[in-house]
């Protein structure tokens, strides 16, 4: 995935928040994906309209974290979501 990519989440995937993170459940593969809070935040911002750069900007401005570090995390997370078939 590139910073300018605009990924779209798979429609059927269910997202739920828990006290210690989040989970995604894909009814098609019947797989549960466990996410930490950061990955959960990234997932919520991937909506088929924002680019990964936009996602990183939003997180960096909301948390005050270094944008370059955030962008790297966003690209890693999006790459993993794509490998698992959760976004396209």
């Amino acid at each position, binding site marked *: 995935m590139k910073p300018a990519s605009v990924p779209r989440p798979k429609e059927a995937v*269910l997202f*739920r928040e*828990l*006290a*210690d*993170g*989040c*989970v995604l*459940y894909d*009814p098609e593969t*019947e797989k*549960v994906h*466990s*996410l930490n809070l950061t990955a959960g935040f990234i997932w919520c911002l991937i909506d088929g309209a924002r680019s990964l750069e936009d996602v990183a900007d939003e997180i960096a401005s909301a948390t005050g974290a270094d944008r370059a570090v955030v962008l790297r995390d966003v690209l890693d997370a999006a790459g993993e979501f794509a490998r698992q078939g959760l976004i396209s």
Partner: protein
Amino acid sequence: MRLRYSLHGLRFAIDADDAAAELILHTIMPPCARAGGRRSGKTAVFAVRCERGRLRVFRGRKPLWTVTSVAELQPWLESEVVGWLLHRFDPCVQLHAAVAEHCGRAVIIAGGPDSGKTSLACALALAGWSVMSDEVALLKPFSSIVASFPRAMLVKAGTVRRLPELRTIEPMRVALREGEVPVRYVSPAAFGHPPKSAARVRTVLFPNWSRTGALSPIGQREALERLLSASLNTARHPKVSLDTCVRLVSTVRLFRLQVRNLRESARLIAEALEAVT
């Protein structure tokens, strides 16, 4: 002879015209299987008929299958009856788990095959708990209420070795199964504490056999992942299963239980439940 059962309002009966068949049929659901609910609908009837030396099994008038011996009958009929019941309980979230209850508070023991579910259920039963199920936990949707599923407990020889007191509990039947290993079919009520029809879950445990005995908390994410992998009907009802399990892990205490000694584990579980209240 007709054996009648009522489980959470569902009525079913098993007709058998053979004394040996009757002996086997009682191993699926103990005669005590009368748990709660208003009776509704027709009684589903499973029938076993001996025809030309073969045993034919019907549900109502519909022929299901034919076996040549009584030994073959039990696992087929068991899976047919249990499958029918689970299908009828479909709105409930069904977990591959044992459930034990004490003073209206239930503990779910979830794990894969040979993780010690039935052994722990036996240890708790010997310590005064009632066993609501040793194989299937029926969770009411979007709640932490679990309903009983009192089929016969299948107690393996290894469990009896670890808990010799089990020899004093009269089994409904002893049979050879799984490579000629003797197993005991025990009614949950045989321990002297008939199962309640429903109870609120306070704790969920994930056991595994270990060289050290310990009870340690686990996170909601890991628990949810494990519960969903133990679910029997998440694929059919993903939202209901997910939301019910999310509610469960958010409202009860969650532990990993390393089992070295069954009596010690039963004591740890009782202490954990005590700490909840």
